[in-house]
């Protein structure tokens, strides 16, 4: 069974800037995959190369086994891309635009019932006859998602689909994306909302300065992280000197400490707080979140 996406040693430069530097990745069919990275890491460049919007300098990309250059028609028929920018065609209505987009993919009238389903599924029913120009940003975003799905692509890439949309719409979009995944679509998304990637995605790749610095399952990535966090309220306003290297947040009696699971003993830390910080008033521990892993990894890369 071919991979949904097979990316092999892909490089892309813009002048002297190496945006992608030998990126290799594989996304299995049916996966819910997050492509993460700080701004400028190369995520959108990689998506551009996959979608054929950019020409890679080296390497190969295949969508469900179809090379994106040699067999571009098949590759593009299997791929739906929601671009990051809120682009739209001002001349046409929502329904007309979706039918036009389906036509480009070679889908005729037989795709119209599916377009109706998309319009309903993305709650665009009352905007069907509105021109794109008249829609709010959130509505335009929904239309972009619908446009990416008009040809029922098995692989869907969403490039920051929730950037700049309100909480309600964001929830609605994730609900819709989950449904697509449940129906068998492979989903690849980039997002800066890491808690969403953590709860939605099965596998994660982190891209930094054009290179893949992590590629594993969300669970393994989180488990591999060596830290645990302790949020504690103490009677004293000062933190004992021996614990100060562990402090990552908080002030004046409310502290956030980061403990290395292999080195720092939780019991000893609590004892120190009890005896040297005026006693513990409240305490809470939490495991690492994706955000902690992400910051740790990308800042470690930056230090190199």
């Amino acid at each position, binding site marked *: 069974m071919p991979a949904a996406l097979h990316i092999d040693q892909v490089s892309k430069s813009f002048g002297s800037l190496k945006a992608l530097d030998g990126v290799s990745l594989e996304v299995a069919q049916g996966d819910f995959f997050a492509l993460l990275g700080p701004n400028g890491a190369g995520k959108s460049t990689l998506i551009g190369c996959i979608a054929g919007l950019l020409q890679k300098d080296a390497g190969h990309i295949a969508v469900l086994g179809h090379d994106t250059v040699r067999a571009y028609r098949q590759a593009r028929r299997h791929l739906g891309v929601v671009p990051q920018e809120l*682009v739209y065609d001002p001349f046409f209505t929502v329904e007309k635009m979706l039918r036009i987009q389906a036509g*480009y993919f*070679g889908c005729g009238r037989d795709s119209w019932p599916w377009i109706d389903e998309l319009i309903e599924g993305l709650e665009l029913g009352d905007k069907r006859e509105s021109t794109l120009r008249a829609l709010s940003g959130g509505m335009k975003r929904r239309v972009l998602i619908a446009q990416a799905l008009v*040809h029922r692509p098995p692989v869907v890439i969403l490039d920051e689909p929730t950037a700049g949309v309100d909480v309600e719409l964001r929830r609605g979009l994730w609900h819709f994306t989950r449904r697509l995944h449940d129906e068998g679509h492979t989903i690849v998304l980039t997002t800066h909302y890491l808690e969403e990637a953590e709860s939605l995605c099965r596998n994660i790749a982190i891209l930094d300065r054009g290179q893949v610095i992590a590629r594993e399952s969300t669970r393994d990535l989180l488990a591999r992280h060596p830290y645990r966090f302790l949020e504690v309220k103490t009677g004293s306003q000062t933190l004992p000197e021996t614990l100060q290297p562990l402090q990552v947040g908080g002030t004046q009696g409310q502290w956030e400490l980061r403990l290395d699971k292999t080195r720092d003993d939780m019991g000893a830390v609590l004892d120190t707080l009890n005896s040297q910080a005026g006693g513990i008033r409240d305490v809470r521990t939490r495991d690492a979140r994706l955000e902690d892993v992400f910051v740790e990894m990308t800042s470690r890369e930056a230090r190199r």
Partner: protein
Amino acid sequence: MSGLNWIGLRTLLAKEIGRFMKVAGQTITSPVITAVLYLVVFQQVLADRVEVYPGVDYVAFLIPGLIMMSVIQNAFANSASSLTQSKIMGNVVFILLPPLSALEIFLAFTGAAILRALLVGLVLYLVGWLFTPLPIAAPLHALTAAILAAGCLAVMGIIAGILADKFEHMAAFQNYLIMPLSFLSGVFYSVQDLPPFWAQASAFNPFFYMIDGLRHGFFGYSDAPGWLGLVVVAGFLALLSAIALTMLARGVRLRP
């Protein structure tokens, strides 16, 4: 890659036609009004003083020139502005993401631009009857000349649209290339009336053959032999098409 994406091609063609028809006041009516204004002014000033071809009054001589000038300018404007606008607004991705080949994009943009140019030309021809009788001596020749000329400019519009990153770039093409070449190629006069050097220089100007070709269709005679005009313009179209198709296939400025 086997076969054409016919539905894709048809859809893009229909969308491009829909785009200019939605703003027909700007894309059809406005150029007709401009041409009619030229006609009114030149009719008043020159009609009684100039006879370019024996037995053909100046207004009748002028109208095919104005029709071809409008055809030229509107064919160029259609594909150039559509592509440039799509690039600037970013919605060009809607045609770059689907499985549309360079040839399909080329044919759709060229076809829509030719149609707009012919529509403007046809309306202007009908309006021209209000000024003077306009029988066409060789209708097939006239239509072929108009289609070939519109094709050339539609393809030049695609090339300009690919190269232009902002509207100023497109306007530069229009103002410094298309307008002077169409004005200076015999819209208002016969090149036989030019000083010998400029009359001979016209032999190397494809725009002259476009205008001269349409006049041949209207009157049955022209400055250059009728067949030569069609051959030159067809050759020019083939050259421009090869350039545009190569640019589209290589993704110049569209798929950087």
